């Protein structure tokens, strides 16, 4: 069984260097929880996009990683929060190709496609929190011995 230690973390996001930490932590945590290589890569990429949003648009913030379970399935939940200007038009921000920062405009919408659950809470003027969760998908023939 995976343990909470090594998965749970609160990492500050204040510089490019912190993004490296975020990616490394998410990769390790995902590997520890039993994510396959493709799912690990997806999660790390989503975390990279969201952490960069937190840094560039939110002016820095925090990532909280936690181990969640439902019906015997393990999942990794990542929450990115900042106290920046918030997202005025969420639908537009999620649409591909829209950018307010000179990027490709694929970050937020792309991250949503890379994870299983995705929710955004944004209050204009007081900050944004993005919570994403992915679940470990095990091959059906692999059965756990009791």
């Amino acid at each position: 069984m995976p343990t909470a230690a090594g998965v749970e973390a609160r990492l500050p996001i204040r510089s490019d260097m912190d993004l490296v930490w975020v990616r490394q932590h998410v990769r390790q945590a995902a590997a520890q929880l039993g994510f396959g290589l493709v799912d690990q890569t997806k999660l790390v990429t989503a975390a990279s996009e969201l952490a960069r949003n937190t840094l560039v648009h939110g002016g820095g913030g925090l990532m909280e990683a936690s181990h969640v379970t439902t019906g015997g399935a393990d999942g990794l939940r990542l929450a990115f929060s900042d106290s920046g200007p918030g997202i005025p038009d969420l639908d537009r921000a999620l649409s591909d190709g829209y950018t307010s920062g000179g990027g490709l405009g694929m970050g937020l919408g792309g991250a949503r496609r890379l994870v299983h659950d995705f929710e955004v809470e944004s209050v204009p003027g007081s900050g944004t929190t993005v919570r994403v969760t992915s679940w470990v998908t095990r091959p059906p023939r692999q059965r756990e011995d009791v």
Partner: protein
Amino acid sequence: MPEHEAGGSLGTPTHEVRDFLRRRREQIAQRWADEPLFRTVFTVSRDEAVEAGKAVVDALAQVADAQRVEDPDAAGFSAVREQLARMGAARSRAGLSATQVASELAALRPPVENLLVADLDQASPEGLRECSTTLTVLMGTLRLVAMQTALSEVQALTDRQRLQLLEVATPVIKLWDGIVAVPLIGTLDSARSQVVMETLLNAVVEQHARFAILDITGVPTVDSLVAQHLMKTVAAARLMGAECVVSGIRPAIAQTIVHLGLDLGTVKTRASLADALGYCLHELGTNIVHTAPDGAGRR
């Protein structure tokens, strides 16, 4: 500077400590030479350790003379800063943590304290206490100076390594006449990708390259920013008449790029560096002929 006679009238505690340090310079240095900090750093001879100890005592006396026992920036410390840094670095190399080095520095105080108590046995308890407090503060400041020096060494090292990393990460390799390749490794943040773009474009000019291969086997994460940097590099190379091929796209990365919704349709991609080289050679009209097995050893 007039010498105070032992047992004479006490001046200010700071001057008293200064005079004590000057008077007992030799004994303090001798005792320090037996402490782990000096003993393990100056292994060649004990005299060397004693000389180093004397230098530190002189610095402390100078700081006390200037009445700046609480000031780590006091001029007196500058003479021993380099020596303290060297000692700290030697202990770190031996595997000691910063805390352990700090406690070894703290261990320098008791021998001096004992000498001070023995020296001022004529003084009033209050005068002795004041002198002892002053000495403690002075030794505390010395510790602070040593730790500051060690920290700034670490900072300088980190800065140097960051610069080295920028250079190390971007070698441009000539694979064939007209074909250059850049193996990208690690994180492609904006500073690094700028260096990559510059070195690649320079190589395109110098080598008269018609093809440039960007190999991303060593890039762990390709997110939209990395993709954007890649596309900008490809576009810039195209303006200079070179075609770029991105190689080393692993299955997990490929699936992620698709889910992310990135359109790399304008970029020529290949799974491996070998495939990319094969493509470029083919485009250049160079044929690779496999020689027969019996002819393999002839060259």
